[in-house]
């Protein structure tokens, strides 16, 4: 999935510089400098209300107002619409899955196919990755279990053939065995050069599966670094602002 616009080695897939997000008077994200490379997995860690979801939504153009810059492989995203950002190659797996309940599994997945880029990931490929939803492709999304719904939500995002995948709390409310499956699967995507930004409540899991992390507290980055060089206890200190 190489793209000739970002072939120079080491250049980041996406960077934000001094990114702030506002809802009316409320500032949800404060001057965040962030970067992620192609093929890299990055964790965004923080308590509820720390601004993680707002940061992800800002990247796909779904917040009221931002300040600062977002650059995605050389293009500024700050004034692009969400459909244009999807077409450029950023996909969000939203918190709470947000499937279309009255559409079938197949229809939900094809929505992804219709909004993104053409690429290597096909419907058959997604069904191969998640056999348990392949057998339920004709059923309405609302009749699936939480784990199956999450697979459809992930599949829908992957079918846009993203170069950057944003996963917002995909383990929420799922059985541990399903969470294990999903997090075992995600790192396999990096070989294609896809960047993954993961928001996850479980700090230990976040560190175990990522290359780098950013710790958000009250909308600002408090702590960041390489995931292997820190541990849960150090992070927790920053979590609580100690």
């Amino acid at each position: 999935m190489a793209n000739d616009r970002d072939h120079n080695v080491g250049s980041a897939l996406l960077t934000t510089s001094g990114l702030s997000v506002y809802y009316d008077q409320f500032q949800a994200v404060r001057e965040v400098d962030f970067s992620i490379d192609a093929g890299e997995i990055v964790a965004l860690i923080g308590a509820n209300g720390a601004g993680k979801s707002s940061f992800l939504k800002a990247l796909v153009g779904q917040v009221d107002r931002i300040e600062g810059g977002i650059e995605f492989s050389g293009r500024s995203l700050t004034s692009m619409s969400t459909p244009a950002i999807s077409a450029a190659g950023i996909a969000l797996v939203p918190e709470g899955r947000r499937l279309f309940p009255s559409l079938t599994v197949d229809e939900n997945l094809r929505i992804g196919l219709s909004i993104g880029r053409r690429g290597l990931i096909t419907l058959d490929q997604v069904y191969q990755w998640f056999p348990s939803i392949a057998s339920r492709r004709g059923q309405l999304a609302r009749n699936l279990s939480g784990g199956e719904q999450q697979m459809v939500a992930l599949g829908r995002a992957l079918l846009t053939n993203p170069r950057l995948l944003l996963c917002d709390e995909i383990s929420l409310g799922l059985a541990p065995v399903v969470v294990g499956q999903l997090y075992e699967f995600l790192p396999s995507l990096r070989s294609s050069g896809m960047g993954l930004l993961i928001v996850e409540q479980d700090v230990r899991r976040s560190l175990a599966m990522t290359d780098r992390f950013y710790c958000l507290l009250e909308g600002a980055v408090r702590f960041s670094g390489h995931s292997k060089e820190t541990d849960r206890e150090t992070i927790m200190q920053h979590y609580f602002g100690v």
Partner: protein
Amino acid sequence: MTIMAFELLNQIIQGALIGGLYVLFAIGLSLSLGVMRFVNIAHGDLIVLASFILMSFSAVLGLSPFIAAAVLMPVAFLAFYVLQRLLLQRLVGTNLLGVILVTFGLAIVIQNGLLQTYGPDTRKLSGGALELKSISIGGGLSIGLYPLLVFATAVVVIFALDRFLYRTSIGSRIRAVADDPAAANLIGLPSAKIYGIAMGVVGLTVMSAACCMSVWTNFDPEIGPSRLLIAFEVVVLGGLGSLWGTLVGGIIIGVAQNLGAQVDAAWQILAQHLVFLVILFLRPQGLFSRGSRT
């Protein structure tokens, strides 16, 4: 066959055929109300507006109303697309009251605009020789060719719309946006454009309803609300979101009207409403509801 049974059967058949016209009134509302969850109070007036435009257009160019309607189809699509994008889209995601007030206002603007332009006279378009032909179906019963064609049109429109909504990519995108507009925006569906296309399709059904109505019955600038009422009852009776339910709803309303009129002319509309209320009481979700929606 006794005379009474004969007359009863005849009225049921004629009622079912006029039901085809009611289905055409209702089908656009079935899409906007049943699928897009959008209460369009101006639906009946938009049909009347389309009828007047059709009348002027066919008069100026000397075309039959059927040809004129076919030519105007792309215009209707575009006009409804623009109506959605410029006006109605602003109401998506707001409360129901705003939608009702704005479309109610639109209805008043259309009615008064038509009164100003065309005056209060009753009009009817001529379908030519087609209107007078009838077909014998045995047992001394005969049905008009034109009502039969309208009924067939209604069935074809329902079939086509059902295929469009449930078998095409744009159809599933319309249902996705209707399901959860916020989620659609979040994952990058261009929901405003998709709503516009859906409304454009409503425009196509409104033009076909206008064509069939203006040749079948009289119309004037103020009959919109009564068309709306019929359309509402047909859609709700059939079940929100069910297009085939709309077909059955139209037939039931047509038959109820005709049988009511047999009792007494004043009973025509009363019977329609009574049947509607009784069925709604027995099946509040309508006859063919597509299951509960979250």
